[in-house]
């Protein structure tokens, strides 16, 4: 019996012992996925058992509108037993006439946002949630319109509602408020932090985000088909596009039982690691930029550029490679490009080492990041932080090792772990990972077998199957969950990007810090909101929407004092 199987048996036994008849059924749709159907009244006890007694890490919750299937909603909490390579789904049915479920946030703090999100999107209320404010919906979105319910059309534009703005948190007595964002100089993406300060010292904060919510999951379920979604998934993130398309494809492949050719799995590994190399170089530059050390920015981005050109040659585009499809890949890596890859990597490695030696010896970056934004091991675990921030706080998790996908079962990853938990440790973890990724690409290129890169799919993808897939993105673990449906598209497609859990650790990281340390602390999470290049302004008084063209924007920004 494998470790995974033993863990599955133990989990079922323990949960049954704790919640008794509250455990309705236990099935194992895949070797690495355990699905526990739990009565909704037992969900908190079951989640507590998983998190506290079995050490499971909370990943994400999916709210599913299953009214057309069984007359109710489904709330699926997803946990991971990392050491045992097992995903555990806690699946609770919620009747359509009683849209309430116990919140698990009191026992699993990392579930905070996830629960507010399913309340906002499918309208099932988490009872006993410590902070039940609106999270995801816009300030003028009316109450009672739940966008991820299946009877709500994807292009619904309800009239703007009044008074839906969630209340802002009151600062503690004696503290004043300094607002950072939604737009602020260091990160070119919107998020708002209201910092509560006493003098220069931060004593608390409040976060508002989701300014760029694009309704991607809804589009995937309502408009696109299985093979169109990879191109949308790729656009979830501008830096780790290949990661999301791989993660989505793997989830569908797992759900449908499609065997991906071995060569395709190796090429996916290579492209994923290439994304990590260029993303970490990009991040290093931004970190330098945030602390005012722009030489690092210029040089790391220069080093990164040949990789982007190489990606263009391999895939046809420097970003958004468009290579993934269900069952494998659309493009192969020909031998001449494989050898070119090795040359480019040799150069990137040499230059990265030079930059590493320079910044480590220089001390400027270290002086600005050492002991800044400390994330303790305990917080990292309770908020369920992932990726480099977790590994820099001594939590040795990495999806490539814990839930091997693509070719990571054949090319072994050495993960970088540091204990200090400060921003400098996160710099070091990323630099080490960058070099490790270069080694992995070399190894994968050497071990890559010949053969086809795309499996032929003859049968339709059967409905009602579930697939969970993770990919270790440069920022941490990305999770996609797919429940297959009819009509050639998923019934539910759930995406969780790594910044989702990581941002929730920010309050703990900046409490006690100085205001000047906030940007680099936030930057050290390598956060990825999303960006949009077109401005759409709503005149609050008249409610009319006006889209500014490039010429308008130029006129407004150039003309001194000109009014829009």
């Amino acid at each position, binding site marked *: 019996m494998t470790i995974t199987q033993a863990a599955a048996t133990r989990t079922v036994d323990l949960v049954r012992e704790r919640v008794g008849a509250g455990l309705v059924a236990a099935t194992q749709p895949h070797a690495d996925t355990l699905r526990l159907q739990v009565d909704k009244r037992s969900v908190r006890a079951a989640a507590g058992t998983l998190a506290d007694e079995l050490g499971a890490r909370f990943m994400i919750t999916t709210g599913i509108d299953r009214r057309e299937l069984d007359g109710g909603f489904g709330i699926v909490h997803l946990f991971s037993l990392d050491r045992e390579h097992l995903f555990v789904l806690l699946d609770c049915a919620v009747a359509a006439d009683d849209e309430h479920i116990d919140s698990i946030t009191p026992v699993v703090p990392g579930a905070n946002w996830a629960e507010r999100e399913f309340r906002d999107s499918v309208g099932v209320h988490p009872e006993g949630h410590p902070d039940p404010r609106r999270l995801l919906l816009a300030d003028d979105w009316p109450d009672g319109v739940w966008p991820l319910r299946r009877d709500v059309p994807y292009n619904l534009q309800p009239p703007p509602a009044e008074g839906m703005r969630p209340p802002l948190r009151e600062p503690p007595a004696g503290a004043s408020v300094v607002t950072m964002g939604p737009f602020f100089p260091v990160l070119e993406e919107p998020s708002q932090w209201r910092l509560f300060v006493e003098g220069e010292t931060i004593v608390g904060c409040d976060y508002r985000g989701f300014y760029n919510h694009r309704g991607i999951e809804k589009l995937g379920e309502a*408009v*696109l088909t299985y*093979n*169109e*979604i990879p*191109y*949308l998934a790729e*656009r979830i993130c501008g830096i780790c596009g290949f990661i999301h398309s791989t993660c989505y494809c793997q989830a569908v492949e797992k759900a449908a039982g499609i065997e991906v050719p071995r060569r395709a799995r190796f090429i996916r590994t290579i492209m994923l690691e290439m994304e990590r190399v260029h993303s970490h170089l990009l991040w290093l530059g931004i970190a330098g930029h945030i602390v005012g050390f722009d*030489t690092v920015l*210029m*040089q790391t981005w*220069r080093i990164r*550029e040949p990789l982007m*050109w190489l990606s*263009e*040659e391999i895939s*046809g*585009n420097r970003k*958004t490679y*468009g290579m993934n499809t269900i069952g494998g890949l*659309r*493009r192969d890596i020909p031998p001449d490009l494989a050898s070119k890859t090795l040359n480019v990597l040799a150069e990137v490695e040499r*230059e990265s080492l*030079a*930059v590493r*030696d*320079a*910044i*480590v*010896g*220089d*001390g400027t970056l270290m002086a600005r990041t050492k002991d800044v934004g400390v994330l303790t091991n305990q917080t990292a675990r309770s908020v369920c932080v992932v990726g480099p921030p977790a590994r820099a706080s001594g939590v040795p998790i990495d999806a490539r090792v814990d839930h091997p996908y693509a070719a990571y079962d054949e090319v072994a990853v050495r993960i970088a772990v540091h204990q200090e938990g400060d921003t400098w440790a996160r710099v070091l973890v990323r630099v080490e990972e960058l070099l490790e990724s270069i080694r992995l690409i070399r190894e994968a290129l050497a071990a890559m077998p010949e053969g086809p890169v795309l499996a032929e799919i003859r049968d339709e993808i059967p409905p009602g199957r579930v697939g969970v897939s993770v990919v270790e993105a440069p920022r941490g673990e990305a999770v996609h969950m797919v429940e297959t449906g009819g009509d*050639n598209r998923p019934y539910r497609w759930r995406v969780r990007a790594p910044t989702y859990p990581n941002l929730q650790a920010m309050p703990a990281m900046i409490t006690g810090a100085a205001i000047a340390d906030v940007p680099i602390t936030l930057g050290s999470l390598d956060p990825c909101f999303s960006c949009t290049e077109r401005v759409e302004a709503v005149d609050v008084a008249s409610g009319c929407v006006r889209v500014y063209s*490039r*010429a308008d924007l130029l006129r407004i920004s150039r003309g001194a004092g000109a009014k829009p």
Partner: protein
Amino acid sequence: MLLAKLREAWICLKAGRVTLPYPFAPHDPAEGFRGKITLDPDLCFGCGGCANVCPAGVIVVKDTDQHTRLLEFFWRRCTYCGRCEEVCPEDAITLSQQFETATNAPEDMFMRLEVFMGPCQRCGRCFTPPTPLERMMRTGFRDGNGGRA
């Protein structure tokens, strides 16, 4: 510390000038680059395969009368994924090397093709040839809603 500063200076100096002269000199993308879609009207026979796979809903197919199938490409929404090129049985669509597509007039990014079709004698609808195309087609096309703009 000083040594590290010197190292940094050396890294910068050695790199020299890296900025490309583009746009004052042309900058050709690598072979296999996915640029603007081009359409060979002589090859297209109106199967609609491209419209069925396009993730961005760029391609809209309508039968305007018994003999004519209208293909409209609202390619300002094109994601340059190349799926249309991949499935076209006649290689009528290719993704060119052209990437300088910025324009102030969105209507520039539109193509329209009328294909003469043989109508079926019995039902009067445009004739749909069997196999490989059948595999590509779902029943019925999406409503022409202007490329879902």
